[in-house]
């Protein structure tokens, strides 16, 4: 993994700061099944970090642990030097961690506006003032390309617009860390490009991003760091180009035979 030092990094390392979130020894068991086993990693302030891995590797479980939706069996998560484990999801949200879901979960019976309004009114430390509220709402809907659809019921939206709505709702909480669970999966190439630009723009505004993704184009194009999970263990971590040549990663995705055909990058 260290070999990529010779390559030009995607972004100057200096732009990335101290860790915003530190995950240490996180394990999660479900009735004998080890979903996560001693996961350690840091996410640098201001970075985009991807978590990849085959289905069932424990990626979403890891998000659920960070967001407070599932308590881990053991381990700690420090967010900006505050422990998150033991806090309720609504408290974690107000500290500045927000998320989207693998299969979208907007409030289907509510309008686009009210979906975002829940996050604006409840997801932040202080309830914003009336004037600021309308301004923020308009800005967010504009940013995710949902302006003009504010009064539509969420269940009437197309799959792409539902994803945009999830993003809008997450942004409304003014997160410092954004967890994106397969935001790009299922989109057409054009939509993928647009969504990648949106993610980059969010990151450029100072939001640290941790994302789960299967679409390699997105992973390679967006990430400063890639973490690979397999059977609940972290098997690799590094810059995208290095990960693409990592023997353990190739084995996890393609099986042992593949390592014989795909030469190691030494």
């Amino acid at each position: 993994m260290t070999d990529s030092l010779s390559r030009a990094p995607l972004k100057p390392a200096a732009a990335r700061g101290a860790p915003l979130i530190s995950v240490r020894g996180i394990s999660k068991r479900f009735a004998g099944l080890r979903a996560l086993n001693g996961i350690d990693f840091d996410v640098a302030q201001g970075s985009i970090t991807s978590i990849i891995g085959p289905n069932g590797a424990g990626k979403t479980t890891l998000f659920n642990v960070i967001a407070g939706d599932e308590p881990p069996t053991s381990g700690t998560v420090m967010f900006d030097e505050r422990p998150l484990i033991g806090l309720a999801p609504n408290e974690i949200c107000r500290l500045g961690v927000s998320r989207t879901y693998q299969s979208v979960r907007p409030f289907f019976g509510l309008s686009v506006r009210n979906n975002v309004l829940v996050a604006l009114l409840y997801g932040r430390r202080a309830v914003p003032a009336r004037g600021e509220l309308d301004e923020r709402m308009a800005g967010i809907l504009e940013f995710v390309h949902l302006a003009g659809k504010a009064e539509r019921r969420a269940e009437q939206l197309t799959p792409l617009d539902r994803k945009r709505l999830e993003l809008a709702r997450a942004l409304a909480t003014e997160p410092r860390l954004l967890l994106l669970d397969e935001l790009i999966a299922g989109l057409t190439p054009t939509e993928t490009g647009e969504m990648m630009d949106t993610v980059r723009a969010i990151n450029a505004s100072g939001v640290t991003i941790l994302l789960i993704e299967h679409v390699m184009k997105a992973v390679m194009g967006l990430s400063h760091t890639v973490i690979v999970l397999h059977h609940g263990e972290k098997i690799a971590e590094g810059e995208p180009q290095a990960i693409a040549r990592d023997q353990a990663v190739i084995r996890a995705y393609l099986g042992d035979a593949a390592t014989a055909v795909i030469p190691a990058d030494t």
Partner: protein
Amino acid sequence: MRLRAFLLPGAVLLFVLGLPLVPFDARVYVMQELTLLFLYAGLAQSYDLVGGTLGYINLGHIVFFGLGAYTVGILFNVGVPLAAGLLAAIAVAAAFAAVVSIPFFRLRGAYFSLATFALVKLMEQIANNLRGLTGGSSGLKILAENRVVPTYYAMFGLLIVAVVTTLAINRSRLGLGMKSIREDEAVARDFGVPTMRIKAQALMISSAFPAVLGGLFVWYINFINPAEVFGLKMALQPVAMAMLGGSGLAIGPLLGSTFLYGLEEFIWTRFEHLHGAMLGLIVVLVGLFMPGGLARLRPVERLLERLGLKEDDQ
């Protein structure tokens, strides 16, 4: 546009307020009927804050009615004036709501409904057994007096307060939090909604109305017993009315209670022996073929729109 919205409510208001002043033979009978309609509508309306806006089907709403009735009845008999008794009833119901919300709101869906329904029967047994306080199964009497007109006005006033409260909550931050819980409680929590606190608040607000209605009821009827105030009919009728009318809309419980109450009177006078079965059949059919309730039927929706009474429920 805005003015139009006051047309129908204004007409109803004038009719209801003026009725006791018009001298005609059936006046007292009509007032008594309407008093019961206001009572049921008030119960349905306040039930729907939890059942419709919050999305928790609370089959135990009537528990607060019984608590209010017994609180006012018992206090009245030791010389406490009605107004003070009603305030005490609100306090008792709200405290009870706060306490039961802790275990009950850990349950979801049918489990919550079943638990709240069991609570009704539990309260009935308690009222039966606390003979020294409640008079047990033989009931509680208070000094009889003709209170038709004041009860008529009071029940109507309370119904208006319930409707206005519903409209105000549905537009408020609290109401939005309640709706987000109804849509997806886990997601609501992920986006900062303190779900346990909001559910407790919703139940406490919802409990105040049946508490006062119960107090007015005993003051009006002069007699209550556990089998009646904690009875099956009392418990389920407001729920059926809210659902038939259109749960989650302020107009829903009003439509549902008027419809069901009127229907019951109509059937009762025409099919003396089968009226219970007829009523049940109609409720089942209506429930099967219009799950959104009367208020969400296209023609009704259009009519409400023309009257300027269409609500935004999303």
